[in-house]
């Protein structure tokens, strides 16, 4: 059992939790994820690691309540225990000195980007961070990310904070100013990663995206998380979750992420009605 040591409500639907998981914390690296299950009847869901504390043996996850499991998780309190918490899974981010790195986070995707930004900065990169969300309330970790960024750009869809517009617009303006960019990291909604990859492809700027498809075991056993990368089938759980954004078939990913939308809606409805 894995105890929830800390909980923060970041917005109405986004929560942060620090979970006691010493073995996972000992090995976790930026870019990796965990799989958790709240209770005996629960589903196994993957969440990207938002931070790790080796000394205190904790893993931080930040999640948006979108399905039944995340809604239930969001209701859990400090002191409650998760039944299962396995990791770290997937390949860590390839941190090295690239030169100038642009790190783009959208919505809840900002969370897993934070440790990557931190490590990239420690590796001696010039880090430009672009954080975007639908509105001000859905932004997060600005202060923490600001600490490790040489430049920090904020944008919101509705203009409630920072520039009004999308992260891709901000990226485009940075490119237009003639800034030489060596690599881009983009984590967020699939559509955001697709648009960013479309922008950078024109300029041949290598772009890493982190995918979060539907998974079951998370260890390479089921292939439910398979994605098409450069016309090859890859498993996001063991080959990823990070891939070259210019090679990912985002349309197939979006399609595969909708596989159980109906079932999820049904379960959420039952949960709201108190029938589950």
């Amino acid at each position, binding site marked *: 059992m894995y105890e929830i040591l800390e909980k923060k409500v970041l917005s109405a639907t986004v929560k942060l939790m620090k979970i006691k998981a010493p073995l996972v914390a000992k090995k976790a690296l930026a870019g990796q994820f965990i799989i958790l299950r709240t209770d005996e009847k629960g589903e*196994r869901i993957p969440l990207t690691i938002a931070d790790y504390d080796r000394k205190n043996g904790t893993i931080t996850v930040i999640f948006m309540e979108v399905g039944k499991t995340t809604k239930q998780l969001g209701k859990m309190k400090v002191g409650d225990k998760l039944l*299962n918490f396995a990791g770290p899974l997937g390949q860590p981010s390839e941190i090295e000195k690239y030169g100038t790195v642009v790190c783009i986070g959208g919505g809840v995707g900002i969370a897993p980007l934070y440790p990557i930004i931190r490590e990239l900065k420690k590796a001696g990169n010039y880090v430009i961070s672009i954080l975007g969300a639908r509105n001000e309330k859905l932004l997060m970790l600005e202060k923490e990310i600001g600490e490790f960024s040489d430049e920090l750009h904020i944008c919101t869809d509705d203009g409630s904070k920072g520039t009004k517009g999308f992260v891709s617009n901000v990226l485009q303006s940075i490119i237009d100013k003639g800034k030489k960019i060596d690599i881009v990291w983009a984590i967020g909604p699939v559509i955001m990663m697709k648009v960013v990859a479309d922008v950078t492809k024109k300029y041949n700027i290598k772009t890493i995206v982190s995918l979060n498809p539907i998974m079951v075991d998370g260890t390479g*056993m089921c292939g439910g998380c398979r994605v098409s990368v450069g016309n090859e089938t890859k498993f996001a759980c063991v080959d990823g979750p990070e891939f070259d954004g210019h090679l990912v078939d985002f349309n197939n990913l979006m399609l*595969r992420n909708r*596989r159980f939308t*109906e*079932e999820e809606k049904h*379960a959420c409805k039952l949960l709201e009605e108190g029938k589950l």
Partner: protein
Amino acid sequence: MAVKKEKHPMPEQKPKERIKNFKEVPYGYDEKTAIEEAKRCLQCKDRPCTKGCPVEIDIPDFIKEIAEGNFDKAVGVLKTKTSLPAVCGRVCPYENQCEGECTLLKIGEPVAIGRLERFLADYERKEGVKTPKIPKSTGKNVAVVGAGPAGLTCAGDLAKMGHKVTVYEALHAPGGVLMYGIPEFRLPKEIVKAEVNYIEKLGVEINYDVIVGKTLTVEELLEEFDAVFIGTGAGLPRWLNIPGENLDGVYSANEFLTRVNMMKAYRFPEYDTPIKIGDVVATFGAGNVAMDCARTSLRLGAKKSIIIYRRTEKEMPARIEEVHHAKEEGVEFKLLTNPIEFIGDEKGILKAVKCIKMELGEPDESGRRRPIPIKGSEFTINIDTALVAIGQSPNPLIPKTVKGLKIGRKGNIETDEEGRTNIPGIFAGGDIATGAATVILAMGAGKKAARAINKYLIKSSNFE
């Protein structure tokens, strides 16, 4: 009195009823039938059946005890060699193992050894499993990676030798393929749990959520333990590698079965993990896993469940019993047929599979006649779900992460006959060493490795 030529039949759920539920198909022998069946055994002096048993069960001895009504004694005989009799008595391919060697085959059907093993295991569970005697500790520690048939057998045997065993399992439940792969109607999960519970009573500790190769490494285990056994199985699904395989509606057998068996998707929404299959399900492949997929589909409500296989019935790798059960339940077989493309609608949802008819040519390296496509014979079948059950490869996680470990051509860990790898102190067995095989062969490998580990531990302590 002449020996009855046939086995006593196994009472089972009627096909029309059982496709509506996930309850076990055969009910098992009652005491009277078990005794009668046991009396068919000739108690041959040369004991040919025992040669066919990978876990070396003293078959004639336990059968003799059953024939005399000494069920407790019979259980004792069984349990000295196997810790998983209720599992073996259900999923072991006895026809190729013990029963394949039975003298009675000369005049008719062999003794129903498998059914008798199951009878005893079920009898014991009903009576209450006795806590086994735990031998004096040797002071040696062994780590077992993977709580599947190989790992559990190895762990149980090592514990019986007095070693302290710690099992590390990546998933949240024990049993490996027994839990995620084999369906409830063939192997109830409560039975797997009961057998695992017995192994825990032997003093074996099982840690879940530990992915060795990620959470811990084999090197770290070697620092803490005197030896490590790797039994991580063949978990990597194989694909057909045809267009459209990533459409919504195409599953690997592993994903489909894991959702249904381990995550209990057949009880969604009570359980959180969903599954949906539509009206027509096509399963590709003709092994036991394929039969499990096709039969599970019927129980989930498919109106039509089709097995699509490129060779003929003769070449099907599934057990005859499984094929028979599938046919009884109404699974259709489209043989000499090979898929060439999955076709989706404008939203990317699977709608059909394009196939081509095959004919058999010359034998290939497996000795089976090679299927050859017949030009111009393409045709399309409308389907809602495709299940790809054409086999699994060894799980690559440990082979990839242990420096210097000798890996075979198929990505398997290379071992000698007794499970020794090229690195002293590291042993391996089951599907990770052989490629996908059967539960009983994995158990046999776990047993042999336990003996080799024991020898290794004694030898290393003599040096100290």
